[in-house]
């Protein structure tokens, strides 16, 4: 218990520090965990309580992600994001897998690393767009839809990788029955749920908290992947009143997610792995490079210029919460260490890249052969694309 309190206060100080200097906080929480835990001073160790709290952090991260996914809106925007999403998926997933496999990870571990390698941090991308005042750029819409595409890939991955034994068809049937039950309950109990959410007392918060935990426990009992079910549950509740559920679950997400990150760092043992440190750093640097390749490809394909590619790259280079989530759910010791390092390196480089993307663009255009005048972002942007 004292360990958790110590870790929390270290994170509180780090949060004050990172917000003051507009830095991403996730890598610092993980570094704090590494220093406090097995890889460092061994002041804090994971126990039953910390494991429960980190589980809560993961559940609320996924629930929150589910609330953000609006199937109808995605359906209307499909042309805008399918092509860029597929470019992003192929380049990063394939490169990540090949690198991990060549470095000696097993087939399963290489797949896990490839997914963590592929999926950018939505939280850091959104913060970067807002803090660096980039919302007006056309690329910011591309980045936002890329993040949604990655979320959907993650959901599909969680649905298929989450099963622990059992016939795949049986699991699909179970998922369908459970989803059907949730949809039926939320459909017929809609007015009652809305009336509860409107209350001023403890009921809305209690309802949100216990519903998320309840779905996770139920999924475990009947043997369907809980991470997938929690996201799907969030998406279904998002059709009732996404803002109310966000308000009532945000405090849980904010606190438990910090516990999740710091204890992930605490349980990672960097020195035990069979993979040498230089290989881990090589993967991290390749993670930056591969997002550069995919960013440039998307920039050329959608916005028809290289500057957009650099803008997309600089905002999506950071890996973060979802990579850590993948490591926490599936990772062996060596995989977790690799992903932790990758998140730290990419998110710090990504934060600086996003801040100085303007200068990088100028450097880049002076390197390129035909030096064209910098085109206005609005004139050159996607003239063929339709937005509502």
């Amino acid at each position: 218990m004292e360990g958790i309190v110590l870790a929390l206060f270290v994170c509180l100080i780090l949060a004050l520090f990172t917000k003051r200097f507009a830095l991403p906080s996730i890598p610092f929480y993980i570094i704090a965990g590494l220093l406090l835990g097995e890889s460092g001073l061994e002041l804090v160790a994971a126990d039953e309580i910390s494991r429960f709290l980190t589980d809560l952090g993961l559940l609320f991260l996924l629930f929150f992600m589910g609330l953000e996914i609006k199937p109808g809106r995605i359906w209307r925007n499909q042309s805008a994001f399918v092509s860029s999403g597929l470019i992003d998926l192929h380049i990063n997933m394939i490169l990540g897998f090949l690198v991990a496999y060549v470095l000696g990870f097993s087939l399963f571990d290489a797949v896990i690393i490839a997914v963590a390698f592929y999926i950018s941090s939505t939280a850091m991308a959104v913060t970067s767009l807002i803090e660096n005042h980039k919302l007006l750029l056309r690329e910011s819409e591309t980045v936002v839809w890329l993040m949604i595409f990655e979320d959907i890939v993650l959901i599909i991955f969680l649905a298929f990788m989450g099963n622990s034994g059992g016939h795949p068809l049986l699991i699909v049937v179970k998922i369908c029955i459970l989803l059907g039950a949730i949809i039926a309950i939320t459909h017929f109990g809609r007015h009652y749920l809305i009336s509860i959410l409107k209350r001023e007392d403890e009921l809305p918060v209690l309802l949100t908290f216990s519903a998320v935990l309840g779905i996770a426990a139920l999924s475990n009992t009947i043997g369907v992947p809980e991470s997938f079910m929690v996201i799907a549950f969030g998406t279904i509740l998002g059709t009732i009143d996404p803002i109310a559920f966000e308000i009532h679950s945000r405090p849980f997400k904010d606190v438990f997610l910090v516990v999740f990150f710091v204890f992930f760092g605490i349980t990672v043992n960097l020195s035990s792995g069979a993979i040498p440190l230089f290989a881990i750093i090589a993967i991290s640097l390749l993670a930056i490079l591969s997002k550069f390749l995919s960013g440039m490809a998307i920039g050329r394909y959608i916005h028809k210029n290289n500057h957009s590619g650099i803008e997309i790259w600089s905002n999506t280079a950071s890996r973060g919460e979802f990579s850590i989530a993948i490591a926490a759910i599936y990772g062996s010791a060596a995989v977790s260490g690799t992903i932790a390092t990758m998140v730290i390196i990419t998110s710090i480089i990504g934060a600086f890249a996003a801040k100085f993307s303007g200068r990088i663009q100028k450097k880049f255009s002076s390197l390129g052969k035909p030096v064209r005048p910098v085109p206005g972002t609005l004139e050159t942007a996607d003239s063929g694309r339709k937005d509502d």
Partner: protein
Amino acid sequence: MALRSINLPGIGTKYELETEKKDVVAVFFLKNGNIQMYTLPHDSSDPSVAELTSAEARRLGTILTGAIMEADRESVEIAFSALSDLRISIHTYTIGKRMANKSLEELQIRARTGVTIIAVSRGEKNVINPPPSFVFHEGDTLVAIGETDQLKTFEREIMVD
């Protein structure tokens, strides 16, 4: 003038307006409650940004609708949703030489224009609903209520020096 609005998941709602001269004004209502306003001149690719709280944004909005004019000559128009054809304007005026030292009765404001004077502010003192015998001084600020046309008549017939 082209206005488009779009919902950006995780960020908020964006409203973008292109002016006749091809300048762009974009307003983002962020999920954290703050508002970012971007302006991009047609001949530049560097936007400028202002971050506003919702109170500041409302104030800016009132200014842009033209409701607040000069500080000493403000006007507010009131419309009731249930009475769509009833539009009442409240306007402030500063008394000049011509109206000074005359009483409300003498000026015959209501009879001649239909406008009612509902308050007069003199220095630190406010007189609400001044009586017919009330005499104006130079520099008084008066608050008049009426339809826009009536107020125009008032400005033309009585205020003009």
